[in-house]
């Protein structure tokens, strides 16, 4: 299955080992402080963040495959149809709240989807960091396999493309499984404006 079209972002190969001697994480631990829900554990790199930083987002293929498989294991797919309410999905896609130090802890977060992607054609103010998702379901269908792929990609984009710049929205605790299903609805429901 081709998966690169969903989200792939190449960063310029500018650093080429230049930072090998600088312990950036130590600097962040010294020069940053926890505020609100943005706690200091966030500056501790996990394995894939480190691999992607060190390889300038071009990890060795074998290692990438292995780490992607690890990420795939983090996704708990719900039973039954994964197509939620596209209307709620549209609101989640529009909003940009969540996880910053001035967001209310515990309040529902949004997906920030339009920051980077085109979705519904009515929304002209959309970003272009990610690919356009216009007519996503209309051109790809909405069978079980596609539902699982879209759910998984939103839950943990790194399971499909290790150094993708798309946040791991489920894995990071940004969105709930219910919210992700609503976003799957926005992308795959034939009634969604995305597919009109």
């Amino acid at each position, binding site marked *: 299955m081709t998966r690169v079209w969903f989200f792939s972002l190449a*960063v310029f190969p500018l650093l080429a080992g230049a930072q090998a001697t600088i312990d950036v994480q130590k600097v962040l631990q010294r020069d940053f402080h926890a505020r609100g829900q943005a706690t200091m554990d966030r500056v501790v790199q996990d394995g894939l963040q480190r691999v992607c930083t060190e390889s300038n987002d071009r990890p060795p293929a074998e290692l990438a495959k292995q780490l992607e498989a690890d990420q795939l294991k983090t996704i708990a797919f719900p039973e039954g149809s994964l197509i939620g309410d596209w209307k709620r999905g549209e609101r989640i896609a529009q909003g940009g709240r969540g996880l*910053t130090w001035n967001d209310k802890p515990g309040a529902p977060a949004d997906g920030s989807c339009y920051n980077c992607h085109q979705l519904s054609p009515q929304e002209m*103010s959309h970003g272009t960091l990610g690919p356009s998702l216009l007519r996503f379901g209309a051109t790809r269908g909405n069978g079980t396999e596609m539902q699982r792929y879209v759910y998984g990609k939103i839950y943990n984009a790194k399971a499909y493309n290790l150094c993708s710049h798309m946040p791991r929205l489920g894995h990071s605790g940004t969105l709930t499984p219910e919210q992700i299903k609503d976003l799957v609805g926005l992308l795959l429901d034939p009634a969604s404006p995305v597919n009109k």
Partner: protein
Amino acid sequence: MNRFLSGLLFLTWACGPVSAQDTKKEIQKYQQMIAEGSPVELFELEGEALWKKPQGPHNVSLEKCDLGQGPGVLKAAYARLPRYFKDADRVMDLETRLLHCMTTLQGRSREEATKRVFGNENQPSEMEYLSAYIASQSRGVKLAAGRSHPKEKEAYELGKALFFHRAGAWDMSCASCHGEENKRIRMQELPVMSKPQFARPIMATWPAYRVSNSQFKTMQWRLNDCYRQMRYPEPNFASDATIALNTFLTVTAAGEPYRGPGTKR
């Protein structure tokens, strides 16, 4: 005025299909309009008054503050920051140096002087006013951040490493948004800040007045708010990490004539 212009822009978009080219043109038109009505000069004037106002336990003004060109010399000072300061044995950017002068010359405590470094719509901060005034004294001067002292080189390398370092709740580095050409967040175009041709016009116009929230903003704020949106913890004001990033960005923009403080969307 801002709401009105945004409304106008929205209408232009909403009236039938528009090409990306048309949209870009409309945005440029809008940027020109906001630049013409900018209140930046008022911030510069207020900053000048604050520069000359005796304050702190020593009840002296900042007029003897050495921003790198000698005590009290403002001409070209901003364009040559960040740079290494021997008296502090540290690379400093404008806000960090101002803080240094507030604590040494004026005898103020660091705690008091940093109580409110970022202002709001109703009440700008002292740092914001002062930045507007001091930066304005570099208009026409080519950006030339320090790059010869070993600590300046170190700051540049650290800044570069920070720029590409991925961490935080959303796995982001600065390059996640500022790493590829011709990309946008919503309608906002994203400059590739690691490339001179993109860094130059940006660094030559900060600090800046932001029309969208009617506030004057400093470079320290710009970096702070990027990290907020990257879902990181908060960078300490005037920390070596923020100065290093600023050094990396300003060195990347070297040679561009300063023409700020700017006016942003």
